[in-house]
């Protein structure tokens, strides 16, 4: 146990010290990099219209730009809580958002357009009522459709919504004009209606506590606009995306050729398999340390709870443990993750992987605690009496006699909990960690192909879980050898 503690300690230290020294101040920009051509991943970098414009402004103002990738739902919260300095994620100016953040001058006037199948009878806005409408969650399309038409079906990114439309699961998708053009150019059976659903202004968002930076930003933005830089940047990315999309569509071949092209596009081009590879290791890292933390917490709480049950001591600790169990088991792990990231570590600059380890560890600890407690309860009372009658203390009896037997009895249930935990880490993307699932998401956002990246992600999880089950099975057999 002591070894475990110091080992975890050492790793946490490493995580904390990952940041490097630099003389220029940092400007932290948050974005969801799944929104080409505004922001997307190329290789290991996040590029697009927003990063480039903010980069130019940061340069003018003398900052080093640091870009963080997180879910679009979270970028406003991030600047509001001071986790980041600026949110640049194709954000539309709305009154509700104005209440929370300071918007810069608009840098783009964007259209929300309607995508329909080639043979659709839908002509425009007036035909949308009662249809199955897909949108990207939290975007202007989502807000406009919800307020003016009906409840839409919300997808975590545009590519998924378009894939659902192409598969006949939707009648129409409402998306931002530029990405919509690219999506449609990659599929032969979709078109964009001429009449846009609505116009909107894109602007960058800064925290309300930061009016000086806001003023500086606006001044710099004005200069760029006068110099024609804003339009040039936008044209550059839009035409680049259109070119690439055209290139992919022209590659025509038989079914095997198609699969090969698809594999090339999704995994080989720009070394995209690296998203899966790195994401896989992040998933393994988070799961491994979260399991260790969960087992430590779980053992501690199980021992406190069963001691309280059996001896009537430790009443206050037992009460605290009960609150912990109720709260953790009574709320979804994704909510816990977001609370720990935005509220508890809101004002602290901590490694996100560490936050995930803590969140998943604390979550898993509650389940491990009850599993181990049931194991302790399953041990015959005579075992404790025998230990105590020989003069061993309560804790000695627990450690030498009860816990080893309890552990053996609950190993199958514990193994199951570890497998659940491994798969639960797939929500790490909510706080902008690129784990295995998020790695697959990034590939999808770049290639507009849902099938292969999702299959690859599923197969990797499956392989890891099978390996884990196999190892646990062998451990179980070894422990059973003496019976």
């Amino acid at each position, binding site marked *: 146990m002591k070894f475990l503690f110091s080992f975890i300690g050492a790793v946490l230290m490493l995580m904390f010290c990952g940041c490097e020294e630099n003389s220029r101040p940092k400007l932290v920009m948050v974005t969801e990099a799944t929104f080409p051509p505004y922001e997307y991943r190329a290789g290991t970098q996040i590029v697009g219209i927003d990063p480039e414009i903010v980069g130019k402004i940061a340069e003018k103002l003398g900052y080093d730009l640091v870009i963080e990738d997180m879910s679009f739902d979270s970028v406003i919260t991030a600047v509001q809580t001071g986790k980041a300095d600026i949110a640049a994620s194709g954000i539309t100016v709305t009154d509700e958002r104005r209440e929370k953040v300071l918007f810069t001058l608009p840098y783009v006037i964007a259209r929300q357009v309607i995508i329909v199948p080639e043979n659709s009878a839908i002509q425009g806005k007036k035909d949308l009522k009662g249809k199955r409408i897909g949108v990207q969650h939290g975007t202007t399309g989502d807000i406009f459709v919800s307020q003016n038409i009906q409840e839409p079906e919300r997808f975590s990114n545009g590519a998924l919504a378009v894939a659902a439309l192409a598969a006949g699961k939707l009648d129409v998708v409402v998306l931002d004009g530029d990405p919509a053009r690219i999506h449609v150019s990659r599929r032969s059976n979709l078109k964009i209606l001429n009449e846009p659903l609505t116009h909107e202004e894109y602007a960058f968002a800064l925290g309300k506590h930061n009016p000086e930076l806001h003023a500086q930003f606006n001044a710099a933005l004005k200069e760029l606009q006068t110099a024609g830089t804003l339009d040039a940047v936008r044209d550059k990315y839009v035409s680049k995306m259109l070119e690439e999309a055209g290139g992919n569509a022209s590659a025509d071949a038989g079914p095997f050729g198609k699969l090969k092209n698809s594999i090339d596009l999704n995994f080989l081009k720009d070394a995209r398999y690296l998203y899966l590879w790195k994401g896989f290791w992040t998933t393994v890292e988070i799961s491994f340390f979260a399991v260790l933390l969960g087992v430590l917490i779980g053992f501690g709480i199980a021992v406190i709870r069963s001691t309280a049950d059996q001896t009537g001591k430790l009443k206050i600790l037992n009460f605290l443990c009960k609150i912990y169990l109720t709260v953790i088991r009574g709320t979804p792990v994704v909510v816990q993750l977001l609370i720990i990231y935005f509220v508890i570590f809101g004002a602290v600059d901590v490694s996100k992987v560490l936050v995930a380890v803590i969140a998943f560890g604390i979550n898993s600890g509650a389940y491990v605690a009850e599993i181990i407690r049931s194991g302790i309860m399953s041990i*015959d009372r*005579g*075992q404790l*009496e*025998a*230990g*105590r*009658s*020989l*003069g*061993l*203390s309560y804790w*000695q009896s627990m450690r*030498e*006699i009860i816990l*080893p*037997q309890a552990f*053996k009895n609950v190993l199958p249930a514990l193994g199951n909990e570890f497998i659940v935990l491994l798969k639960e880490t797939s929500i790490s993307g909510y706080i902008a960690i690129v784990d295995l699932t998020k790695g697959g998401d990034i590939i999808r956002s770049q290639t507009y192909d849902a099938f292969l990246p999702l299959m690859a992600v599923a197969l990797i999880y499956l392989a890891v879980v099978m390996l884990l089950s196999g190892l646990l099975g062998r451990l179980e057999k070894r422990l059973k050898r*003496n*019976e």
Partner: protein
Amino acid sequence: MSEIVFEIKNLVKRFNNFTAVDNVSATIRRGEVVFIVGPSGSGKSTFLRCLNLLETPTSGEILFKGKEVVHAKRDINFFRQQVGMVFQHFNLFPHLSILKNITLAPVKTGRFTTKQAVERADALLDRIGLSAKRDAFPPQLSGGQKQRIAIARALAMNPDVLLFDEPTSALDPEMVGEVLALMKDLAQDGMTMVVVTHEIGFAAEVANRIIFMDHGKIIETGTPEKVIRNSANPRVREFFSKVL
């Protein structure tokens, strides 16, 4: 007369509204072999379990070698190291080898070094004729073998007194003999023993003294000859006429 090991004064043990041990006083001296007999539910097991504080007495005093132990919270582990206990259901540790079962407590309590504990364990195993089982695990043993190991485990702490709580009740009849033989052997060696049992014939043969309990009280105490054969108390006479 030899040194007093246990002196019990006005011991009461109550569970909710049920009084299991009702104002019992008794004295156990070094080298004595005392058998506690009586009908089921008479409180003899509870009384025995109070002696090493597996049950906390409701009131009364227990003096061990002259020292009060009921309220000696801090010294309870040291006190128990000197009082061995053998259980009806053996309570061996199934996840540990026979050798580890015997050496765990002597080593962990610091009573012996690992080397001493292993030597003592080997000597005890030799004495009870189970050296071959040294590296086996409890689930591989017969009931009689398990109980002999449990006795060896208690002896390994070198206790002043051994308490037996119905040591043969959970055994198949053909295994009772080997356990009783070992207990008799210990008694003849001068071990101080307090035994709760239903084996009246064995009690008559081995005991120095018999304590007869009923409804939580000691009704009669004396030599086996006096209590079993010639009791003046009709309740005691009735009991033995039924079991013998």
